């Protein structure tokens, strides 16, 4: 059986490493950091882990409906394609920084991209 992307990227340790780099990028990005104001850091780190586990196609219990629900209050305050693109940018840059091979980055990007409609509530 072939390994999942999550396993090939390196599993939980890879997710932890990615979260630090990614979250620092997100919080420093004036285009999107307002969506992350007022959230508890520790909880947010857990959610970022969930985000990466999902993007790597790893074990998670989220459905499309959950994604809609988790982001609905953000859509209400203006979350749109431009913000989604910014997050995709940071996802890619993070994986490049971690020297993940291009083919795997493309796979992760495709998985994340597939959540666009649900995240943006379309």
């Amino acid at each position, binding site marked *: 059986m072939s390994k999942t992307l999550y396993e090939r990227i390196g599993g939980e340790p890879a997710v932890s490493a990615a*979260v*630090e780099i990614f*979250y*620092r990028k997100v*919080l420093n990005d004036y285009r999107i950091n307002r969506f992350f104001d007022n959230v508890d*850091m*520790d909880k947010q*780190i857990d959610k970022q882990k969930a985000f990466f586990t999902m993007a790597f196609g790893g074990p998670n219990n989220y459905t499309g409906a959950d994604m809609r629900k988790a982001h609905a209050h953000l859509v209400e305050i203006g979350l749109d394609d431009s913000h989604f693109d910014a997050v995709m940018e940071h996802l890619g840059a993070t994986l490049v920084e971690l020297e993940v091979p291009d083919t795997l980055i493309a796979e992760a990007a495709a998985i994340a991209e597939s959540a666009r409609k649900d995240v943006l509530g379309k």
Partner: protein
Amino acid sequence: MYKLTIGEKTYYCQPGESVLDTFLRENVNISFACKKGTCHSCIVRSPNILPPESAQVGLKNTLKKLNHFLACLCHPEQNMVIKLPDQSEFYTEGTVVVNQLLNRNTLLLIIAFKDAFEFNAGQFVNLQRPDGLTRSYSIANIPQASNTLEFHIRRLPDGRFSEWLHDEIKTGDTIAVSEARGHCFYLPERKEQGLVLVGTGTGLAPLAGILTDALGHGHSGPIYLFHGSREVDDLYRVDEMRKLAEQHQNFYYIPCLSGKHVPEGFTHGRVNEIALATLVDLKDWRVFLCGHPEMVNQMKKMTFLKGASMKDIYADAFLITAT
């Protein structure tokens, strides 16, 4: 809706309620201090069914095995029989040996124990009043041959527990003390790492313990302590800290005052802002944050953005529990 049974009595856990919520609504005598799984004072036991895993987070394996769980984190998934713990299982009696003011509103309390008390400097314990009221307080010293714990208690206006400690407790009195808890402490590794300690008010208590521990272990990296309050009369141990800074060339002490009146030798401004302005890059630093919850939460984010890794950020927010 699930049934919760204690002895002969049955209570109904409403949708959305934790077991603790139900008990408090029904006036069951159960202790609690944080309502968020930190203090462990609401620990109870389910003798015949396994409690939900999420209600056992952070408990020792021995307690987990006996089906102990935290009432404040438990949202029942079935009817439960619950045993309130025999308090003596979790509390040790200590005797107050020192009780004196450190400044106009901070009490130094030293409690002695018969046997060795196991803890890491910087951890906290729960103190319990005979009527069951429970509050968390940080340990300010390192393990002593004399088996004593030191606390710094700030008097809050109309604060039930802190006023009781200030006004009624005398030397010679006994007091119930829980085991030490919490993750905010020094580990003697990577001794060349920079340490930054930021605290407001009695947030100095755990930081003083951590500082003593680090210096005692011969920590060689720079150690910065920023202690803040509004007025100079609300700081304490200023001279002791200055002396330590003279004795250890890698230790820097920066007392900060946010109020208008700032005497010579003190820095004007909020402690968090001064710490961030002083230390520009925190990559590879270890961070300790104690005291005011807003300061702690804001600094967790800011020190992370300045390069500190999440696993190197230790924090104790002195949350006040709404009751």
